[in-house]
């Protein structure tokens, strides 16, 4: 707390001092000379009234002093100086949803999880890509959460009904459920800087929801797509709706997915895992290395509220007292 015009305070003190001096000098007013004042002053009623009167006077003096001090302080413009270090959110997340036939039973649930994810993230850019044999960008990276939520709600409704134009453009490739291609598309949907290298100041995450049941001949295998993700500095967080692996053989789809995800530095969750959403959110937000704070800024704001509030209270008290003191 500091004062913009600190010199008002000594000025006000001097003014109060002058006023007090003048009022003391003007003291010899016309008074009634009376005798035997004790006939009145000895009365208990008078003593009682005198005590009340004194209390009221003291209270009025205190309130007056508080009022003067508060108004003088308000006149001196109290300001609050604070340093603000605005945090720049710089995480990009692409939600990557496999809409192949094997996923129809769980896609609606995944969309709900995505909705929840979109609600949890704060300040990040979110984009969404759906893919089957070819991929479609549902909405690009955006921080317009309202729009993102709207799109996710639409996606959820379409996935619930399983029909409509929502899936248009996802069957243009050969085969179905080309996970590697889908992941590659998702990785590609992060914007690059002018020289083609990823922007080092922004972290990149892909939340890939797939069961990794491949049917067809993809352009990119999952491993190649993972390598692409690594080269583009993208972390892949896999979300498997149905981990139906038999054992830990490396050719099992769940194990492959986990391996790919963890190679990129991401994580692997099954959909029914209770820690899926908070886990992904935490992992994404842990990419602190790429979040940075802007230069500290000094912010000076007037804070006249409390001195004026005190003055208002004291003034009200004085008015009430004045009304009571005036016979």
């Amino acid at each position, binding site marked *: 707390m500091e004062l913009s015009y600190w010199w008002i305070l000594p000025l006000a003190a001097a003014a109060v001092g002058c006023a007090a001096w003048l009022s003391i000098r003007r003291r010899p007013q016309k008074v*009634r000379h009376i005798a*035997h*004042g004790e006939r009145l002053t000895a009365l208990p*009623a008078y003593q009682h009234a*005198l005590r009340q009167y004194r209390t009221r006077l003291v209270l009025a003096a205190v309130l007056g002093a508080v009022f003067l001090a508060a108004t003088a302080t308000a006149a001196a413009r109290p300001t609050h100086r604070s340093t603000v270090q605005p945090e720049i959110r710089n995480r990009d997340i692409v939600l990557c949803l496999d809409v192949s036939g094997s996923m129809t039973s769980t896609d609606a649930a995944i969309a709900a999880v995505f909705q929840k994810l979109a609600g949890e993230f704060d300040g990040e850019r979110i984009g969404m890509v759906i893919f089957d044999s070819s991929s479609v960008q549902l909405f690009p990276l955006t921080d317009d959460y309202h729009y993102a939520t709207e799109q996710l709600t639409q996606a959820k409704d379409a996935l619930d009904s399983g029909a409509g134009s929502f899936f248009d453009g996802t069957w243009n490739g050969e085969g179905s459920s080309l996970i590697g291609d889908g992941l590659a598309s998702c990785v590609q949907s992060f914007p690059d800087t002018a020289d083609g290298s990823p922007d080092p100041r922004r972290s990149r995450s892909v939340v890939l929801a797939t069961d990794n049941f491949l049917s067809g001949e993809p352009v990119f295998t999952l491993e190649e797509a993972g390598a692409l993700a690594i080269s583009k500095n993208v972390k892949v967080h896999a979300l498997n709706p149905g981990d139906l692996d038999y054992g830990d053989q490396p050719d099992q789809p769940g194990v492959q997915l986990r391996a790919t995800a963890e190679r990129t530095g991401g994580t692997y969750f099954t959909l029914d895992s209770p820690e899926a959403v908070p886990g992904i959110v935490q992992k994404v937000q842990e990419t602190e290395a790429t979040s940075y704070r802007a230069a500290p800024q000094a912010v000076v704001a007037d804070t006249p509220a409390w001195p004026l509030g005190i003055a208002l209270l004291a003034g009200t008290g004085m008015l009430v007292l004045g009304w009571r003191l*005036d016979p």
Partner: protein
Amino acid sequence: MPGLLRRVKSKMFIFAHRRTLTLLDGEYGSVFKGRSLDFDELRAYVPGDEVRDIDWKATARHGSPLVKRYVAVRRHSVLLLVDAGRTMAAQALSGEPKKDIAVHAAGVLGYLASRHGDNVGLLQGDTVASTYIPPRQGEEHLERLLQEIDAIAVDSPASAIAEQLDYALKYLKGRLLIVVIADEFMPDPRAEALMRRLRARHEVLWLTIRDADLALETGGRSQDSTDVGTGWGIPAALAADATVRAAYATAMLHRGQQRDAIFRRLGIAEEQTTGSEDVLPAVFALLEKHRSGIRAARSAGKGGRSAG
């Protein structure tokens, strides 16, 4: 030097009709004139004369009332015993300084006395000193007495009328007509004893100047009060407080009754005046009261004797 006596006289003639003044003269005469058995003269009756002084035979012969005059036993001396403490510089009930009223009352009494050829003296004082000016005749002397009384100021010493009563008892010999001019003084046991002794030795009349109302209702601009005795102030806001005023009125009523009882017990005629306009009627009433008191005492004495 402004003529205080002249001012007193002019005030007397402004506030009183001629008739009243004549009445006052007669009243004074019948109170203070001593009677002897030596017949002096017959003169026309003036209102205020004792009806029993009327010479009915002479009146029947003459056609208009005539009163008998006797040669006075001796020349009377009137002593004005005035409280000269600083409380007398304070306000009276009328708002004037009490000393102004004292000057006026002393002037009226002194003037009446000097018209009757009596001597007028002054005993005044405060806690520190008592000043005695022996009774003498003449208006110059009276003027001097009034100047003495007029010199009371707010910074004078405090009042102590008992000291002056004591002084009168100790040093003044011979029967005097003492008119005490004081404010609403409440005699304590010592003062009461002094008053009783004074009453036994002299003729005592007591003229009280009413004190200012301390618990005033604020009419328009209210003024704070300062006690001349203690220097303490009384805020106008407190003096105007309804409960305080009620309590004060009750206390004052009680006090007045107590004072009345004391004066009645002592057999001293006491009358109150609120301001200088009220002095003449008050003096008249005081003389009347004193006369009737004497008569009552005399008749009581006679009755007692006849009964015994």
